């Protein structure tokens, strides 16, 4: 299906509307995880295999788990889901309606919606003795440790200071 990337991006927007309509945070976390999975599939569709893996591991596997059990600490007795109460349901319906109208408007234009999102493909190296094969995005991310040496050092130091700050905050000054 030629429209698969567009359909996935529409599903991404619908997932974002799902947690932006602010239900109780445990349901918001669920919508964020679903949006994350859809976003990861979008990235994979465009050839970003390494970036999709990083997003799955670090983002969904790490941060959402932390969000999950932190939210479990701050939960109330009757969490508010999308069907309970008019505010959340109204926000969700307005967002979905807006997205449907936008999709119909875009499809009614006579432009070429079937865009050729060709992936990065594999970069074949012809140099020296023999030939090799590299993936574009993993090589690009690997350049972080080559051209961006100082950035890695600064980011590492920042994270260390950040962890120290987190410990001090939780300890209560």
């Amino acid at each position, binding site marked *: 299906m030629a429209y698969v*990337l567009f359909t996935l991006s529409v599903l991404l927007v619908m997932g974002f509307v799902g947690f932006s309509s602010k239900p109780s945070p445990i349901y918001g976390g669920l919508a964020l995880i679903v949006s994350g999975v859809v976003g990861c599939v979008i990235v994979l569709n465009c050839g970003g295999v390494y970036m999709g893996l990083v*997003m799955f591991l670090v983002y969904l596997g790490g941060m959402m788990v932390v969000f999950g059990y932190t939210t479990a600490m701050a939960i109330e007795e009757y969490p508010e889901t999308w069907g309970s109460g008019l505010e959340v349901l109204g926000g969700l319906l307005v967002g979905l309606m807006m997205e449907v109208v936008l999709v119909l408007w875009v499809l009614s234009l006579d432009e070429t919606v079937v865009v050729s999102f060709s992936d990065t493909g594999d970069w074949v190296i012809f140099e020296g003795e023999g030939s090799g094969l590299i993936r574009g995005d993993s090589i690009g991310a690997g350049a972080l440790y080559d051209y961006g040496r100082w950035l890695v050092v600064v980011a590492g130091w920042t994270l260390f200071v950040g962890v120290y700050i987190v410990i001090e905050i939780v300890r209560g000054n």
Partner: protein
Amino acid sequence: MTPTYMNIMLAFTISLLGMLTYRSHLVASLLCLEGMMMSLFIMTTLIASNMHFPLINIMPIILLVFAACETAVGLALLISISNTYGLDYVHNLNLLQC
């Protein structure tokens, strides 16, 4: 404007609106902040793939790293609020009294 890029920017805007409006919980705004970071990650990764410019891939990774750090600090504040007030309701934050 390619419709997929339009949808991803729309997702960013929807998360931004969700973060700026408060209902009862504070952690819901943190979730919307996470959504913003995720949409930025997807956007920059798609641009790096479609322009065949692999070096841009450094930016989403660094963005994700600092977003994780920011999440940790936000959750730590949430925990300290939850320890003081019991729940993270926004109307509990009334020290400023304005």
